């Protein structure tokens, strides 16, 4: 789900790796921590880790989904 959310806002920073394991990879287009939209739709606990601190971002900690970190979605 994280790659779908990322694509929906036209950032496309999450890609499916061509390896046999089909890992999801995040490239330089990712603007975290400005954007955190992917985190709220990733179901695999512990699957996204903050590089600097090493802490898991899934499930998303409260500070990443404050109002100013969320993408407005209008009809």
């Amino acid at each position: 789900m994280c790659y779908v959310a990322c694509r929906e806002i036209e950032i496309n920073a999450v890609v499916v790796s061509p390896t046999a394991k089909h890992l999801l990879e995040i490239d330089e287009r990712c603007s975290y921590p400005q954007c955190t939209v992917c985190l709220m739709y990733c179901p695999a606990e512990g699957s996204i880790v903050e590089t600097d601190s090493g802490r898991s971002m899934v499930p998303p900690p409260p500070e990443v989904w404050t109002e100013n970190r969320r993408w407005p979605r209008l009809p």
Partner: protein
Amino acid sequence: MHLILREFLDKWVYPTGFTGPGVEFRLRQTERCLPLWDKLVNQAIESAEKDLASGSDEYKAARARGGYAAEGPFMSLKQMSTQILSVEIGEQPQYIDLQRMRARQIWDEVKHGQLHADVLLRGGFIKREEELMNDARANTQPKLSYFGMTAMFPHIHPLARAGQHYYNESMACLGIAATLSVIDDDLIRHQLHSQSAEELMHFMEGKYQIDAYALTPEDQKPIEEVFDFLLRPWAPEPSRALGGTA
């Protein structure tokens, strides 16, 4: 509210990636779901405790046969194809990601059926999976509103499926968590752990579809109608749904 539900809400339901009418709509529907989600957790715990107190291993086979019937190859192919057909050819560019996830769910659910078959095989209840073809208990399930809603709920809108993903797949997650809190049998735990992340992914499909796409009253209406259907007390009981009293 049971702690298992509270933790599920805080981890997976309330965090949102978007603002807007889709999120607001989802949170309104969530309020409607809460009493039944809570009831489900308590019932799953009671059921697991009753199974443990039975003094027999039959509960493992009964759970696995029921699971095979509900999400084995037959039910999975039948029901997952229904959700794919809800998106017409012309709508595919808009909803292609949803179509991909739904196509993947066919495989997911068939795999879940194999997990149940594995319990029956490794538990010594059957010798070969083919034996299940002769057992009606492994091939019938009575719930109208179970994940495919069988034919009782027409998938008339590409987003209608989101209501089912959100309501029923969350119940799968909650039921698994509740059962794992009680049953320590290796066979059961292996099956449930193998299944839990997948169920959560299907719940996330519903959450994402509503947050990202259910932005207008026209798109919200068919989803709300799914919740209207699923939240009716007779939804899991076909005889009452079809006019009977039993």
